């Protein structure tokens, strides 16, 4: 307490009145060498390998450029964006992303809520086991998850078709990843399976923040578990839930690994999303080479705009997150 107070001058408030700011006079007297010494390496690495490529992408999106040779680059203004707006596969990609976000969310959020509520309930046993099994897919790599599910969904030796044949439903066995509807369904399901652990734990943290007195009071009034959940937990969880939904939207917009490695956007481009379509436009070298770096960049920029819009929503919501109980 009390202890050392600033030796000189009034508290030096920074622009945003951050209370933790250095106010010790020595910070000024001894020179601010530490600011430069500690910041410059970070800024250098970040500028060269993150900021510059991001800005360069914006520039490239205004060029028509086939192949790597810079002589082939031609400034075309917004022509790439005009083309993208009319590109049938950009439309298909946007539709697929909307389906992944909406249908995936409709599967993910009720389940995540149920899991997190169950993990808080004293009457549920073996919680650690359930938590571990539900959560672990989250830490696996995209290629790992995708390869695992290509095996499970393989038409000839996959576990799913094997199961259907085993129980006499062999007629339902099908090439899951070879038809656009089931392939998209698989992408949605695998995305949910991969991520649900995160949302479960995030909502769990939100539920733990609700003071138990509120529940005690309601119990005294005779509320049952269902009423407690729908009457107290869900309304008080609203802000956490809103942030979780925005995070899921951002994740859905960025969907890449599952599509890239499970279906490669096929059959016949029907399961493309913006990320995979951009990779195809920019880097496809097999078959008929595309290598349209400028057009690919413009698709990446469209994706950036969508993600930034969602991220702004995220920062708005997370700033409002503090509920007063």
């Amino acid at each position, binding site marked *: 307490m009390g202890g050392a107070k600033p030796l000189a001058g009034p508290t030096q408030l920074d622009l945003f009145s951050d209370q933790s700011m250095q106010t010790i006079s020595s910070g000024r007297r001894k020179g601010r060498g530490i600011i430069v010494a500690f910041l410059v390496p970070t800024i250098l690495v970040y500028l060269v390998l*993150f900021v510059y490529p991001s800005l360069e992408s914006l520039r490239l999106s205004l060029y028509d450029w086939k192949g790597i040779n810079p002589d082939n680059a031609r400034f075309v203004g917004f022509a790439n964006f005009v083309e993208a707006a009319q590109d049938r596969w950009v439309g298909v990609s946007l539709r697929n992303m909307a389906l992944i976000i909406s249908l995936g969310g409709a599967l993910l959020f009720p389940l995540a809520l149920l899991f997190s509520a169950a993990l808080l309930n004293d009457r549920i046993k073996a919680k650690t086991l359930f938590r571990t099994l539900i959560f672990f897919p989250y830490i696996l790599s995209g290629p790992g998850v995708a390869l695992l599910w290509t095996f499970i969904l393989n038409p000839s030796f996959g576990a799913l078709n*094997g199961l259907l044949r085993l129980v006499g439903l062999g007629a339902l066995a099908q090439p899951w990843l070879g038809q656009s509807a089931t392939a998209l369904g698989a992408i949605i399901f695998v995305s949910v399976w991969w991520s649900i652990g995160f949302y479960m734990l995030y909502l769990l943290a939100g539920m733990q923040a609700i003071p138990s007195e509120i529940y005690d009071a309601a119990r005294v009034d005779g509320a049952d578990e269902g009423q407690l959940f729908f009457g107290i937990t869900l309304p008080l969880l609203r802000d956490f839930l809103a942030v979780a939904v925005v995070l899921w939207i951002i994740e859905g917009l960025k969907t890449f690994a599952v599509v890239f490695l499970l279906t490669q956007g096929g059959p016949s481009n029907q399961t493309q999303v913006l990320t995979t379509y951009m990779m195809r436009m920019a880097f496809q070298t097999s078959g008929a080479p595309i290598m349209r770096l400028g057009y690919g960049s413009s698709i990446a920029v469209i*994706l950036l705009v969508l993600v930034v819009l969602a991220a702004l929503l995220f920062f708005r919501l997370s700033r409002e997150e503090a509920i007063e109980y």
Partner: protein
Amino acid sequence: MVATPSDAPAIPTPLRTRIGQPLAYTLIYLVLILWSGLSLFCLLWVLANSFKTNQELFANAWALPANLQWANYLKAWQKTHMDRFLLNSVAVCVGAVTLTAALAAMSSYVLARFSFIGRRPILVILLAGLAIPMQLITIPLFLLFTQWGLINSLPALTLVYVAISLPFSIFVLTGFFRTVPRELEEAAVLDGANEYQVFWQIMLPLVRPGLVTVSIFNFLNIWNEYLLALMLLNKPENMTVPMGLYFLRVTQGAASDWVSMIAGLVIVLTPTFIFFLIFQNRIAGGLTVGALKG
């Protein structure tokens, strides 16, 4: 504590809940068991089939292997240069995680504790990186690396990983530095410590939990990263583990050698699992500080 006296008049419970609750709990259990059972099954199925012959795999995917075909593992290991991939991944991960921790700790300390012109814009630009999708930087990075002859350079890839890990790390660590009471620093300064000593001897030990959390997440993200690796590496001897899977898929898929592919998947998943089991609680606890999958 509000202790409800046991002799208080019993609160009338609606009849509905007495019947409804066991049913509700049964349903909740059912969903829990189905979902976690599916995850467990996926792993066991992959494990069982990794020991089969290709004939056995196609004959019945639900049967257990007659004999354990360890040869699948040997083949997966050799065909993919897995030892090389593992070494590369460990080197890149350890390098990038350590460097990120050092750079992020230093810059977060300065950004959280000193006021200077440009602090706010720098912080904003650094945190904006959280929203940038990786696909945006792949094309320019690919061109930059081609131009500078850095394709296949693991140190260069390591630096790229540092750059993409910085926004999240700084986001978390500035938060940690801000929670350290200022009195501690002031006392040290009165004792004659300079800013560097304050950082090393006072601040760094206090934010260690934050550093550990950040490093665990960076490690997982970098260990699993493959989009940039795919673009910036093309020689097998330079590839990392996630690309190894991709590589395995192409080579063994062409040879229709599915069982070695499955064995390769098991090899690749094992280190992640060990890591997960060791750090499970920290990973779960750290999620709420705002971890995002890249």
